[in-house]
């Protein structure tokens, strides 16, 4: 994804005359790279290859496994449950990503240098990013339950009962999105804050003197300058939102029915409740490929709207 320009200026290739001769540090490099390389081979490279292979097998946890070719993928194509999981995931992504970006950018702008102390406000909105998702979800379960805080307030103020959010096919997904936004936007807010801090004040001041309104200054000067950060945030937020699991697992368990069963929740159920490890691996690869395609399209599309200088 975000692959930085790699520094390949290897001095050994071009020894400077007169300078100290650079030699290859092959031995030292082998030693220094050994731990991370062994770890990555064992716990990343090997599982990736193994997962690809597993996808072509019928592989129960107990009992014999056998090669079934594309059977897992075929059954996914035919599966209504998997279709529902994909649709649920897309609904989540479509609701979550734009809201996340707009809210995080809006608050990053709002917490301007005139707000004091800035660090405190930024930290407040960042807190749920670092608290355990299960704890966050537990609070929302309490608040959104019948007779919980929301329902209780509605009864007191308006004399009507709130819908049973977590038990309703209509409201369960919005509840999952709400929890995800609440705990998620703080990260992007800090990304945008860092980008906004880096916008040179001289540019906006010059525009002010030229009589540009604040709105014009923001949309014409500030926004284009921070498009690389927005691009970065959109790419990462999209990737992580396709992988949504814990919020739905804890808040609704994927229900009611399968109203909030996302792709990863479906993967978890297939893999670790029904122990179809082959099928679960196939789901993981479908997810990976969807993420990859969307990310590639974003990198292609970025030329139209991201300004790097």
């Amino acid at each position, binding site marked *: 994804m*975000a692959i930085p320009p790699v*520094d390949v200026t290897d001095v050994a290739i071009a020894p400077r005359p007169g300078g100290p001769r650079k030699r290859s*540090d*092959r031995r*030292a*490099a*082998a030693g*220094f*790279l050994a*731990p*991370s390389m062994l*770890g990555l081979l064992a*716990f*990343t490279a*090997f*599982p*990736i290859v*193994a997962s690809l292979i*597993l996808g072509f097998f019928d592989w129960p*946890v107990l009992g014999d496994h056998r090669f079934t070719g594309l059977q897992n993928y075929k059954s996914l194509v035919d599966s209504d449950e998997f279709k529902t999981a994909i649709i649920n995931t897309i609904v989540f992504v479509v609701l979550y990503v734009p809201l996340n970006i707009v809210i995080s950018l809006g608050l990053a702008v709002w917490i301007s240098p*005139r*707000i004091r102390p800035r*660090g*405190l406000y930024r*930290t407040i*909105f*960042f*807190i749920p990013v*670092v*608290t355990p998702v*299960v*704890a966050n979800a*537990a*609070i929302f*379960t*309490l*608040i959104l*339950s019948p*007779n*919980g*805080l929301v329902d*209780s307030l509605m*009864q007191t103020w308006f004399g009507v009962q709130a819908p049973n959010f977590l038990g309703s096919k209509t409201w369960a997904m919005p509840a999952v999105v709400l929890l995800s936004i*609440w705990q998620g936007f703080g990260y992007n807010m*800090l*990304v945008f804050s*860092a980008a906004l801090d*880096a916008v040179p004040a001289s540019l906006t001041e010059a525009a*002010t003197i030229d*009589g540009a*309104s604040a709105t014009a200054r923001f949309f014409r000067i500030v926004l284009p300058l921070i498009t690389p*950060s927005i691009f*970065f*945030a959109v790419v990462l937020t999209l990737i992580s939102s396709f992988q949504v699991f814990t919020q739905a697992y804890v808040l609704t368990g994927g229900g009611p029915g399968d109203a909030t069963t996302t792709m*990863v929740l479906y993967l*978890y159920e297939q893999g670790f409740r029904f122990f179809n*490890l082959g099928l679960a*691996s196939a*789901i993981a690869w479908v997810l990976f490929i969807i993420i990859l395609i969307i*990310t590639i399209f974003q990198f292609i599309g970025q030329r139209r709207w991201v300004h790097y200088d």
Partner: protein
Amino acid sequence: MTSETSSITAVDVRPPAAPAPAIRLRSRWSKVRAVLSQTLLSLVALLFLAPIIWMVLSALKPSAEVFTVPPKPFGSEIKFGNFAEAWNYLPFGRFIVNTIFVASVGTAITLVASAMSAYAFARLNFRFRGGLFVLYLSTLIVPQEVIVIPMFLLMKEIGWVNSNKALILPWAFTAFGTFLLRQFFLTVPKELEEAAKLDGCGHVRILRSIFLPVAAPAFAVLAVFTFIGYWNSFLWPLIIVSDTDKMTVPLGLQLFLGQQGQRWELLMAAATIAMMPTVVLVLALQKYLVRGIALSGLGGR
């Protein structure tokens, strides 16, 4: 929002003869707006924190008074005892100790392994350095879900199911740490090491006594995010741990949620305890937050 102020400026400042009153008017107006803006933002922040405040308030209530209409901030008595009860209920204290161990050891291994490989990529000359680095980075695009299934089989094969090793080691060797530290190491001036090299210091010594202190902020950022990552990790522990004795905090909370639909005050007390370490870390390091995010996030463009 600000268009009004600016249009005043635009109209009145142009004739350079009379700028003073316009500027005074503008600055008074902008002070009022700053106060308004801050007040409104504080309200938004309070609303945002409401779930967490409600969690703490609920944790202090007697069992029968968690759900009331109308909602009350405090119950008939303030029960601090709920925290002690939650700690001992299930073995929640045990979960905390487990998680502190897993997160600390995992963070330590991550820091050491990342520092070593980052040093190699930033300072050592060897063939295929660029290619190998790209290979490292390419592992970052693979979602965790692809990895967990074969990892589960691997752990079963080598008998690590229900062990701390299985919680720690698979996630301790990330390309992310290598990348973050390498980016920082590249900004360290080479002159710093030259003297040490002339004195005959080896690479280990240079990494320890020159890079470690200079790159302390980068290490701090990596340490905090790694620790928090271990602390909050859910999917993998859910898959690999079923033994209550080995559970981590998020699993314990989930168990709580499943078993005790009735004891909400204890669950909220447990959630409060579970949130404490990460919140304290973030508050303590808030100075570095934006910088760290800039370092880890924007460095990647």
